């Protein structure tokens, strides 16, 4: 009986959380459409999510591109297909690794900071204070973060794609001895615009997920430092899992033909 009760408790908690998240999502989306808009807050989030994530996303991308070139060269050498290295690097970066790795890195960096900041505001009654100062917390805190997440992640992924391909180029030219002109030609030969666009669509979805999870868990944060800590962990874990799940779902939709 205890076992069944435990399962029931987990199931009810799951339903409750899903319902709360659904209401939070609908409220957030409804506020995106209606004024007032806090442009200054939006600008600050562009800077926070976009500009300050450049270094971490760039470093992740360059090492990923370099490893990709090394690994694919080692594997393809077994059946004399080393010429495909450039194509593998560019397609892997634009379609999968650019958006997924940028998403996961930003989830760790931005999702955590959003949940901690909003959670602390909840615990110290700053969110209640916003309401008493005639300011809707959804419009002031949640909407700018969601919009900035959706718009900034694709820009970060463009940067990650370029740096990742450059990383692959560096290893291929200076370590594996490829001809630079041939490598660049191979890079662009099989790359199609839909490869890049599909990656950017994924990035926008991942940006929305990161901001939504950061805001939701921060907003629902429990009391005290432990509550904020738990909210931060939940934001990063749930955003990361949802990114991996949505990556599969989007890949099967975008590349099903």
């Amino acid at each position, binding site marked *: 009986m205890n076992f069944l009760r435990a399962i029931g408790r987990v199931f009810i908690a799951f339903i409750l959380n899903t319902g709360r998240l659904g209401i939070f999502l609908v409220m957030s989306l409804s506020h995106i459409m209606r004024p*007032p808009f*806090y442009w200054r807050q939006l600008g600050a989030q562009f800077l926070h999510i976009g500009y300050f994530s450049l270094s971490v996303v760039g470093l992740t991308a360059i090492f990923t591109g370099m490893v990709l070139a090394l690994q694919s060269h080692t594997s393809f050498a077994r059946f004399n297909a080393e010429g495909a290295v450039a194509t593998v690097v560019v397609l892997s970066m634009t379609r999968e690794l650019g958006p997924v790795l940028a998403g996961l890195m930003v989830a760790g960096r931005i999702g955590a900071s959003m949940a901690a900041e909003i959670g602390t505001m909840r615990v*110290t*009654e*700053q969110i*209640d*204070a916003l*309401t*008493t*100062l*005639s*300011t*809707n917390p959804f419009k*002031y805190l949640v909407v700018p973060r969601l919009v900035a997440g959706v718009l900034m992640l694709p820009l970060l992924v463009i940067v990650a794609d370029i740096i990742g391909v450059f990383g692959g180029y560096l290893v291929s030219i200076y370590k594996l001895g490829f001809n630079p002109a041939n490598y660049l030609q191979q890079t662009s030969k099989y790359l199609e615009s839909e490869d890049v666009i599909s990656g950017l669509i994924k990035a926008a979805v991942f940006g929305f997920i990161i901001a939504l999870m950061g805001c939701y868990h921060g907003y629902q944060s429990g009391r005290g430092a432990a509550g904020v800590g738990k909210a931060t962990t939940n934001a990063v874990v749930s955003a990361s899992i949802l990114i991996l799940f949505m990556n599969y779902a989007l890949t099967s939709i975008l590349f099903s033909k």
Partner: protein
Amino acid sequence: MTQSLKVRVRGLKKSFGNKVVLNGIDLDLYTQESFVIMGGSGTGKSVLIKCILGLIEPDEGSIQVNGEEIVGLSYTHQQKALEKVGMLFQGGALFDSMVVWKNVAFALTHGHGMAPFEAKKIALEKLQAVNLDETAAYIYPAELSGGMQKRVALARAIAANPEVIFFDEPTTGLDPIVSGAINQLIIDSVRRIGASALTITHDIGSLRKIADRVGLLCEGKLIWTGTVKEMDTTDNPYVVQFIHGLPTGPFTTG
């Protein structure tokens, strides 16, 4: 004395799970009156204020602010009805990412759409009204002492000239001298803008200074109301135990 009602609460009930916090509160706050609710920790004082401010949805009952029923209103309409209400939170609840003058001007710039230079002028005036000079306006709340933070929070609460102000334990955690100064500032500020004040506290010294009328909250109900003079002469065992801090009496100590 003919006074109009600013806040009228009837039959207010709120429970969290099985725990009944408010069990049928009736409360009247008149124009330019200072009403203080006293009660022990965990008796639902903050929940009562948050229900009136629309921050917590009550289970049952009626809340009227300036004659307008706010229970059941949509968020936007509720905020419209509460536009002329200010609040001083227990911990100040200052925005730590903004300098002091921006905190004070927040309701004016964000809530009322006032131009920043105009709002800044008013914020500096309000800071002066709570005895803070201009140098304090340009630093962050974390750099201020607890007493100074309370003054900034008070300046923010009165910045938009509200008609009703709520004070949630305004002197908790402050030394007696700073508490005295905050009490005096509350009296002066409220009188200057002609507002009504509803304060919750368990600081009897503070209560004696700022209250016109007093209510005692116990087991989710206002079990006694009267003037400060009546409070000192009543034989209500709850009031007697509470104001004298007696270890024995009808209140159970937890």
